[in-house]
C-alpha cells in the first residue's frame, strides 16, 4: 500500500457521488426456511456523475442490488460504500424512484413531493418551495393539487421523480421507473430524464430490462445474469452526449444491441429485444 494513503490515517478523497460495491452477496430466506441466493459476490464501481444501467432479466437481482445501494436492504455479506462511507441504512444523499409510483393516495401530488422533503428533515417552508420547483421542472405545476388517482401513469411517475429530486440527492436510484408505462409515454419520459440529467449530471443507477432503454440513457451498462445474480459484463456506451432518439438508427447502436443481446441470451427470454 502506498505510504501516502496511510499518513495521518487520512484515506484518499472519494467523490461523494461515487458508489463502490465490494463482494456484495445476498440471500433471501424463503417461506420453507431455505435460503436462496440472489446476489453472488458483486463488485462494481460507479463513478460520480455517471449514468449507469443495470440490465438483466427478471429475478437476476438487479432490484436487490439497487436496494443495497440505497440501504433499504443490507447485504448478507460484503459492503456498499457511498462516497467512501459504508451504507448502513437509507440516507438523504440518495433518492429512489420506484417502478410503481408509490404515491400516498390520500395526499395531493405536491403534498407527496413535500412529504419526501419532510421525512429527510427539510423545514416546511423550504419543502414547499422545493416541491413547487420540482413540480415545475417536471411540467406538473397545473396538477399540483390533483390526487394520484386523478393523474395518468406517466404523470404519477413524474411526481415520483419530482419527489426524489426535491430532496436534492447526489445519487438517483431508479428501479424500472418506466416499466409500467405504455411505449409512447415511456419514450417521452426517457427523453425527459435525459434532459434532467444533462442539467446537473447526478450519479444515476437505472434498473431496466430493456436493452434499448439502457443504451439510450447510460454511460455504462452492467449486464446481470440470474440465479445467482452476477455482473456478467460492464459495457461502455460510446455514444456522444447529449443523447437523442435519432441515435437509435446509428450503426453503433445496432452493434451494441446485438452484443448485449448475446450476453443476455443464455438467460431467459424475458429481456425485451
Amino acid at each position, binding site marked *: 500500500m502506498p505510504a501516502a494513503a496511510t499518513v495521518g490515517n487520512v484515506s484518499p478523497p472519494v467523490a461523494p457521488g461515487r458508489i463502490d460495491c465490494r463482494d456484495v452477496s445476498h440471500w433471501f430466506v424463503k417461506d420453507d426456511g431455505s435460503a436462496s441466493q440472489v446476489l453472488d459476490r458483486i463488485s462494481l464501481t460507479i463513478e460520480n456523475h455517471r449514468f449507469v444501467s443495470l440490465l438483466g432479466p427478471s429475478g437476476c437481482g438487479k432490484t436487490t442490488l439497487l436496494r443495497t445501494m*440505497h440501504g*433499504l436492504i443490507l447485504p448478507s455479506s460484503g459492503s456498499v460504500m457511498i462516497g467512501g462511507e459504508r451504507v448502513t*441504512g*437509507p*440516507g*438523504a444523499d440518495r*433518492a*429512489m424512484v*420506484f417502478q*410503481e409510483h*408509490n404515491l*400516498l*393516495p*390520500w395526499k395531493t401530488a405536491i403534498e407527496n413531493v413535500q*412529504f*419526501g422533503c419532510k*421525512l*429527510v*428533515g427539510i423545514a416546511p417552508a423550504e419543502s414547499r418551495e422545493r416541491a413547487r420547483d420540482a413540480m415545475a421542472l417536471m411540467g406538473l405545476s397545473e396538477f399540483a393539487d390533483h*390526487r*394520484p*388517482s386523478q393523474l395518468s401513469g406517466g404523470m404519477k411517475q413524474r411526481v415520483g421523480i419530482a*419527489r426524489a429530486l426535491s*430532496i436534492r440527492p447526489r445519487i438517483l436510484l431508479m428501479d424500472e421507473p418506466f416499466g409500467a408505462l405504455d411505449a409512447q409515454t415511456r419514450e417521452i419520459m426517457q427523453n425527459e430524464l435525459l434532459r434532467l440529467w444533462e442539467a446537473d449530471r447526478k450519479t444515476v443507477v437505472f434498473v431496466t430490462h430493456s436493452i434499448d432503454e439502457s443504451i439510450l440513457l447510460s454511460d455504462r451498462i452492467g449486464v446481470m445474469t440470474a440465479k445467482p445474480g452476477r455482473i456478467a459484463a460492464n459495457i461502455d456506451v460510446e455514444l456522444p452526449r447529449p443523447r437523442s432518439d435519432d441515435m437509435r438508427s446509428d450503426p453503433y447502436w445496432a452493434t451494441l444491441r446485438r452484443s448485449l443481446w448475446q450476453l443476455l441470451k443464455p438467460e431467459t427470454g424475458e429481456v425485451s429485444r
Partner: protein
Amino acid sequence: MTAQETEAPPALILPAAAKLPAWWARGSTLSAVSLVVFLGLWQFVTSAGLIEPIFLASPGAIAQVAYEQFFVTGDIYPHILVSLTEAFIGFALAIIVGVLLGLAMGRFERVRQVLEPFVMALYATPSVALLPLFILWLGIGLWSKALIVFLGGVFAILVNTIAGVRGTNPRLIETARAFTASETEVFLYIILPAATPFIVAGIRLAIGRVLISVFVAELYASNQGVGFLITQAGTTYNTPLMLMGILLFTVTGVVLSQGLSFIELRYLSRFREQ
C-alpha cells in the same frame, strides 16, 4: 318524408321525459315514497281492525304514546339516560381498546401472537353468555352492562383495525423508509392513515352490536333503560309503548350508522387506493 319529420320523434320524447320533476329522479324520493306507503298500509290494517291492537299497534297509537312519554309525563327520559350511559361507556371503551389494541396487534407480530388466542376465544363466545358472570362480579348496575356493551362492540373494531394495519401497502412503507422515515414516522404517516377507513368501518359495524348488547343486558337483569321498558311493556301487553321503545333503538342505529357512512364518503374515500 322530409328531414324535419324524421327528427320529430326525439323532439317529442324529450319534453315528455323532461316533464318528470327533479325530485322524482332522485333515488331518495322512491325510498321516502316507499316508507310513506308502508306507514299508510300499517295504519290501515290496524285501524280497520284487521289485526288485534294487542299484536300490532297503529303508527298513530305509537305516536300518541311517544308524545305522552316525551312531552307530557317525561317518563321516558330516565330510561333513555340509563341506556345511553351504558351504550356510551361501553362503546367508548370498545373504540379506545379496539383501536389501540388493534394497532398494536396489527403492527407487532409478537403482540398479535400473544393475544390472538384470547381474542379468538372471547370473539367466539357469545358475550351475552358472560352476563351472569359479570352481574356476579359487578352487580346489576351500570358497569356489568357497560362491560357487555364493550365486549359486544370491541371485536368488530379490533378485527378491522388489525386488518387495516396489516393491509397497508408495503410499497408505501418502503417508500417512506427510502426517505429515511423512522418507525414512528412510518406508523404515523403511512400506517395510521391507511388503516383509518378500516377503523371507521369497524366502528360502524360495532354500532349494531352495541345496540343489541344494550337491549339484551337490560332484558336479563334491570329495572331501568329502554330495553327494560320494551320488556316490561311486552309483559303488560302495552304494545304501543313496546313498539315505541323498539323504534328508539331503530332510530338511534340508523342515525349513527348513516352519520358514519356520510363521514366515510365525505372525508375518508381518499384514504383508499384506487
